[in-house]
């Protein structure tokens, strides 16, 4: 494999694999909470961090982490308190973040929107030694939280009201989810870019759902899809002259379409097996309440 002879490709592949693991691992909780677009929002806020990093000559990755964590916590606070027009407040946070990024980077000496492009759409081949260190540390944090606290996060994301009665620190866990999502965005920033981050958080989970019935299986399949597409996209971009970020996202959507096509006959067979096991006839068992996929309208 000559592809691994190059140090920049080793770094790129490592970063890609870590993103493939972390993005769906956090994304599944966001999807479960029906906050699928939160990653996108954080991505916009992170742009201000990148701009500030250039302006202050600090590492854009760490600066983006800091700013997007602050942004994610603000979104969570808006969710608690700003109930009436929360969507408007969030919109301002998103676009303020984006405008702030463009502003700061143009104020930076010698900075222009061109610098921003590599963060917006990813720049896998220019991932540096220090970027890799940062990505490894941040990814370790994300894996620790999403796996170590999976039962707690599952309970809070499934039914916040019930989770409160189990004595879980609901607010702390919500904040932790937001912070972890923010960290993931900055992990993925160099690989797929801020504008495409959310795709890797959401689409593998959506694709996995086509096959799975349990949360655990959805988690495992989503991470497997995430790792496959990030490696696939990186390798493709090495042999063909295509942008890795876009390739990865298109591959993810391809996986979603393929699994959806596969799921229809699979679900039908499953429904038949279930009907045989429970002794219900497949058709006309409970008229009008059951549709063809076996789902029951509530």
């Amino acid at each position: 494999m000559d592809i691994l002879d190059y140090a920049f490709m080793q770094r790129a592949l490592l970063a890609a694999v870590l993103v493939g693991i972390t993005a769906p691992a956090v994304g599944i909780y966001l999807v479960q909470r029906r906050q699928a677009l939160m990653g996108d929002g954080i991505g916009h806020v992170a742009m201000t961090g990148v701009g500030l990093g250039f302006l202050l000559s600090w590492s854009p990755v760490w600066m983006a982490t800091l700013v997007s964590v602050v942004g994610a916590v603000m979104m969570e606070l808006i969710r608690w308190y700003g109930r009436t027009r929360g969507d408007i407040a969030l919109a301002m946070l998103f676009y303020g973040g984006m405008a702030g990024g463009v502003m700061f980077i143009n104020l930076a000496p010698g900075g222009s929107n061109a610098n921003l492009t590599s963060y917006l759409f990813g720049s896998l081949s220019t991932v540096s030694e220090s970027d890799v260190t940062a990505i490894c540390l941040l990814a370790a944090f994300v894996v620790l939280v999403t796996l170590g606290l999976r039962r707690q996060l599952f309970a809070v994301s499934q039914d916040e009201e019930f989770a409160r009665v189990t004595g879980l620190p609901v607010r702390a866990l919500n904040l932790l989810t937001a912070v972890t999502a923010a960290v993931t965005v900055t992990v993925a920033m160099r690989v797929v870019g801020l504008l495409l981050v959310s795709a890797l958080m959401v689409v593998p989970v959506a694709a996995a759902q086509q096959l799975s019935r349990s949360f655990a299986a959805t988690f495992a399949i989503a991470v497997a899809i995430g790792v496959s597409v990030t490696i696939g996209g990186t390798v493709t971009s090495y042999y063909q002259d295509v942008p890795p970020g876009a390739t990865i996202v298109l591959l993810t959507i391809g996986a979603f379409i393929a699994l959806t096509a596969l799921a229809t006959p699979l679900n039908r067979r499953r429904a038949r097996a279930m009907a045989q096991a429970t002794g219900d006839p497949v058709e006309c068992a409970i008229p009008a309440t059951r549709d063809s996929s076996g789902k029951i309208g509530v």
Partner: protein
Amino acid sequence: MKADQPGEPVISLRGVTAELGSRPVLRGIDLTVHHGEVVALLGANGSGKSTAVRTVIGQVPVTRGEIELFGTPRRRFSDWGRVGYVPQRTTAAGGVPATVTEVVSSGRLSRARFGILRKADREAVHQVLELVGMADHAKQSVDALSGGQHQRVLIARALASQPDLLIMDEPMAGVDHASQEMLAETLREQVGQGASVLLVLHELGPLEPLINRAVVLRDGCVAHDGPPPPAVGQHALPGHDHVHPHAAHGAEPVRTGLLS
């Protein structure tokens, strides 16, 4: 049927007021559930009965008044394994598939240290699934269940921690007849074992023989606290109407869907 039994109060609300947005929903209610008692909280849509229950579990902040659980102020109460909660079914739907076992297991978290489920916890989960007749569906996705089956799952989740107090918000709403009978039977067993119950109900229905006392709310105030009204007379309850209970969430904020 037991009459009001003197005993330590397991739930005690004194002069509780609460607001949703800036609209007052509770205007100073007193509500006590004694040990071993089954209390029904009745009232029309918007009378504040769900809000009252939500103040007890801490989901809705209290603006004035005191709430105690098992004699401890709610803020300092930490023994949540003693409380089993069944929310309105509409609140419990995630965007990712989950099996019946996975959902019911989260009810065991209050007894599990650091969220690690041991063998005894898994057995407890299996037992409550047997209890509500859902053990055959343990590996099925909750999305594929009927309304009645889903409600049984939520009750199993509440029972998973073997609670002394059950709080249920409209447990009979949208539940088929067979499941209603099953729920009434499960509840009877729990009460027989000494559990106390606070139920939000739209009408007494099949649970009527179990209920010791009814508290009727009207416009955020207690309008009646005493023996449950006779079955034939329930339509004469103050403010009773026949609107479906799920419309009662007019006070809830509009969810944007983006970051609801």
